[in-house]
């Protein structure tokens, strides 16, 4: 049961080409919808039944999000795809863009039909040049085949889709920052509400979804919502792309059913490199609290199991750490990242991320003080929930987990001015 949805054409030669996608039934669902003029509500209902939750990290139910759009309100509406893929550890959308771009295109057209949008943008991070070119080729092929443009397949429905390239800013993955960025501004998140469903791109009603969410749509409709839901487990419908990296023999992207034991995923990734001991796992991108290796081996990869263990499934980015890693150093690097990427709009985030980084850094460098451990928890707690966007929470998220599970390493650094792990 691998590669059933987004990566289902991966075994084909040059799977990104239109003819290859069509050899596996590509664009059949869209064609059927346009020919039969399927009522949009039916489509949204089917997506709800599938249990698909947003694959960008927040896990919000996709069907529900779509139902917030006032479909019949006059004027322009937009569908926006989030291919910014910036959360450290995440590298799955890149593979969808490179190997199955047409399924994303088809998913976006169907989404547009469902909410009554006639224009869409795919926001691709600026560094992703090869994926961008693949996506552009797919757009060209789709346009020539009559799947994009005016009056699609004679249905009277118009839809035009373009790429927008980012410029290197993690915060632009946040949906409202992303919209600002498409509008040609610096990518600073907006206050919410209003939410994009009411006031989105260019002030118009907009749905914004992750690449994987949108690329899942054609199969959900083709096979039915319940089919997708049944691949996974309760509250976690479908299969999911896991980007698994770190100290591994065979890191990569694996599309497997939600609820698969972590131990199986680890095996697919070739196990820990050099036969070393599994120390810890960051299960959902660098903002997800760390879980000790032993505990992780008993968990399944779904929203509920990971949440019960005190972390989150996020974007499905699994970072595997072996026993040679110093957790203080890992936290230092993560704190540096959030501090660098804070857009600076909110004081708790701007100041707090800087403070976190400086304190972890001085502990790492043997200048930590005993009070620093409480200080870290304190600063993190003061950021969480007090900011415009979730970058602040993302920065605070890893701190408590690290101190809870690996406090002894931080303590050792403070007491001995050096690292507990290895000779360091």
């Amino acid at each position, binding site marked *: 049961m691998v590669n059933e949805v987004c990566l289902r054409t991966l075994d084909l030669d040059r799977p990104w080409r239109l003819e290859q996608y069509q050899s596996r039934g590509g664009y059949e669902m869209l064609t059927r919808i346009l020919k039969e003029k399927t009522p949009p509500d039916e489509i949204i209902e089917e997506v709800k039944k599938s249990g698909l939750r947003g694959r960008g990290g927040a896990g919000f139910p996709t069907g529900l999000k779509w139902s917030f759009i006032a479909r019949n309100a006059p004027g322009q509406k937009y569908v926006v795809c989030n291919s910014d893929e910036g959360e450290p550890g995440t590298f799955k959308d890149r593979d969808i863009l490179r190997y199955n771009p047409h399924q994303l295109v088809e998913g976006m057209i169907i989404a547009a039909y469902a909410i009554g949008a006639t224009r869409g943008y795919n926001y691709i991070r600026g560094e992703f040049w090869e994926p961008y070119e693949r996506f552009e080729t797919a757009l060209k092929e789709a346009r020539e085949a009559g799947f994009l443009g005016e009056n699609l397949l004679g249905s009277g429905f118009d839809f035009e889709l373009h790429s927008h390239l980012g410029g290197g800013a993690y915060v632009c993955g946040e949906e409202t920052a992303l919209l600002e960025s498409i509008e040609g501004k610096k990518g600073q998140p907006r206050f919410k509400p209003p939410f994009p469903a009411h006031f989105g791109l*260019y002030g118009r009603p907009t749905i914004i979804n992750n690449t994987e969410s949108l690329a899942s749509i054609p199969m959900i409709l083709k096979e039915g919502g319940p089919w997708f839901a049944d691949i996974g487990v309760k509250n976690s419908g479908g299969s999911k792309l896991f980007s698994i*990296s770190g100290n591994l023999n065979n890191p990569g992207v694996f599309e497997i059913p939600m609820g698969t034991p972590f131990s199986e995923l680890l095996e697919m990734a070739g196990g820990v490199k050099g036969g070393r001991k599994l120390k810890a796992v960051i299960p959902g991108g660098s903002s997800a609290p760390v879980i000790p290796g032993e505990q992780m081996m008993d968990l399944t990869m779904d929203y509920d199991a990971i949440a019960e263990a005190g972390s989150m499934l996020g974007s499905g980015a699994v970072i595997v750490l072996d026993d040679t890693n110093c957790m203080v150093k890992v936290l230092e690097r993560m704190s540096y990242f959030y501090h660098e990427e804070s857009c600076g709009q909110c004081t708790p985030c701007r100041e707090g991320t800087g403070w976190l980084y400086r304190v972890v850094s001085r502990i790492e460098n043997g200048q930590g003080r005993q009070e620093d451990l409480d200080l870290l928890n304190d600063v993190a707690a003061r950021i969480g929930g007090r900011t415009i966007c979730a970058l602040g929470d993302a920065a605070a998220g890893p701190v408590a987990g690290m101190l809870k599970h690996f406090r002894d390493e931080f303590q050792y650094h403070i007491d001995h001015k050096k690292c507990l792990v290895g000779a360091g």
Partner: protein
Amino acid sequence: MNTIEVNNKAEIFSTEIRGEIDQWVAKYPADWKQSAVMAALRIVQDANGGWLTTELMNDVAAYLDMAPIAVYEVATFYSMYELKPVGKHKICICTNVSCMINNSERVVEHLEDRLGIKLGQTTEDGRFTLKEVECLGACGGAPMMQIGKQYYENLTPEIIDSILEGLE
């Protein structure tokens, strides 16, 4: 808003550059030319050896009917725009967690030794710049780097040497 008055936009950039920018402008609503600013900056930066001068940013502002300050804001916000000269080959090395625990430090050291410069610097002959970057979404191939539009993954000192030797 202070925009720069220009009589003839055809005088701002070369025909090719205007053609490229116009393709991007056409993707957005007619009253949202500003949406093409990121693409325009990228295009003129590429044509100028990889960095943006104030003059170029002013030209972009004039071409897209934007206030120059709005263009500077964009150019300074995003990390892919360079406001100072860079080498012919900008080597962007990821040092985020997955790369770090796969020894990106060795990649940095090797490049620093070989080129005789530190992160953030450019070689005297103007051929190479070393830049530290955040996760580039290719952690499965850690450690990795980007040169120009190309990703290079699973780096070792030997692989790095052969990549550098293959560059003009």
